[in-house]
């Protein structure tokens, strides 16, 4: 599903984001990317989203070499990738329903399909009754569920999460992790960058540890690495 082949990203100021990454994530995987600040987690996420271009090496997502994509093709790559951020990034002047429908509208989904899929996804993330609420009327956990609903409403094969529990208390964070696990069990590949040691230890999924831009540990099933 995702292949990174000798990927190095050096920033224009000379600092190194990631160095010589080789990573293969299979369809249906649930992968934690862990590491301290500055370890290269964010750089890796941005490379996957094609927000950044690798300096050398190549990235293949869903059998498409992303370096070879023209600017016009990038949106179609991104339709394969759902994204969730630490800070939710909801539109404050739109309701929960509209926030989720927005993701479908901007890829020009037919209104009929929007009316069918949005309520279904809201029910899936446990917000079936919150469609008319505005983001500022929701708890942090509910806001993240809304963001999650928006990320998966177009049914992307891959879900990328950048510290999705970073702003949530442990209990709420757990709820989100349960939800991610459910989504993963439905076949979506999940890549999640995180600091949260407890979560990684409890989930017992694949863990890739980054340090100073390099992969220092990659285990199929395990907990948070002390090297991170």
């Amino acid at each position: 599903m995702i292949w990174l082949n000798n990927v190095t990203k050096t920033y224009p100021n000379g600092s190194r984001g990631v160095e010589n990454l080789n990573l293969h994530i299979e369809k249906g995987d649930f992968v934690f990317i862990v590491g301290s600040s500055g370890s290269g987690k964010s750089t890796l996420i941005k490379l996957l989203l094609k927000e950044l271009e690798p300096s050398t090496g190549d990235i293949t997502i869903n059998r498409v070499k992303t370096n070879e994509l023209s600017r016009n093709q990038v949106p179609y790559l991104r339709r394969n990738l759902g994204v969730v951020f630490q800070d939710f990034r909801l539109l404050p002047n739109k309701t929960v329903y509209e926030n989720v429908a927005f993701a479908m509208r901007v890829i020009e989904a037919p209104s009929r399909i929007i009316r069918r899929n949005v309520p279904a996804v809201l029910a899936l993330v446990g917000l079936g009754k919150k469609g008319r609420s505005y983001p500022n009327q929701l708890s942090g956990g509910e806001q993240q569920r809304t963001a999650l609903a928006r990320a998966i409403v177009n049914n992307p094969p891959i879900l990328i999460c950048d510290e999705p529990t970073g702003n949530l208390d442990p209990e709420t964070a757990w709820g989100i992790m349960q939800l991610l696990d459910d989504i993963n069990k439905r076949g979506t590949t999940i890549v999640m960058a995180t600091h949260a040691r407890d979560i990684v230890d409890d989930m017992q999924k694949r863990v890739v540890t980054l340090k100073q831009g390099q992969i220092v540990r990659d285990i199929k099933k395990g907990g948070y690495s002390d090297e991170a």
Partner: protein
Amino acid sequence: MRPSTIKYFLKEGLSGLKKNLLMTVASIVAVMACISIMSFSYCVASNLQHILQQMEDSIGISVFLGGNPTSQEIEGMKTTISKIDHVLDVQYISPGDALEALKKDWGADEDIFEGLDETNNPLSHSFQITLDSIDNQGSVLATLKGIDGIDNIRHGQTETELIMKANKVFNIASILVMLILGIISIMIIMNTIRISVVNRRVEINIMKYVGATDWFIRWPFIIEGVIIGLVGAVIPLLVGMPIYAKVISSLYSYFPVIKMIQFLLTGDIFIVLFPVALVFGVLLGVIGSVTSIRKHLQV
């Protein structure tokens, strides 16, 4: 493009304009100024052109004979003039004919000529000379000046040249003013769109993540520019039409002499001006928004 998508673009474009009302109004006023100047220039220039055309059609040289020539002398003079190069036609006009023509030109006001008849007609015997081209007027005039018995020569050369020159100066001046106003309009529109882009930063960011195409993101801003341009063009046109009609009719009623020249009708002017001004207004809006998008919207 789906109808629901077009509806979405229109809605977003309008809401962008509403959120940013002060700049929207400023942009519309700028476009209005530009279109007003353009419309005014077009009205003046096309009328000058029209008048020039009328003058050129009636262009010719009038030659007045001194004293009281005999019919033989008149016939001889006619032959001499006909032989000059570039002269197409020579028409003899007796003082009586001239008086009749004058009365007709003045129409309802012909009573000012009352009391004039064959006995006290102050007008001279004259020839109306038609040339093959206005360009040869100079050489024909020179030849005519050398002929004895000609008292006075009158020609439209200076008037025509004056109008031509005025027309040219006016055209250059209005193009310059339009250019400056056009650039100002585009700059104000650019700023309006920039603010609109900044207002929608978060939205644009999300749109990019979920895979909206660059064009999908750009359209609402282009719509904003188009709306500014359309409104800015339509208002001066709608206001200008009755004003033009009013100005022409007052010119005719305050200066009866002007009846000799024909102004263009409101319909003749606006059937050309309307589409041209609309296209120009929309063009200003589109150029403004597209430049701004390229500069501020990194998609």
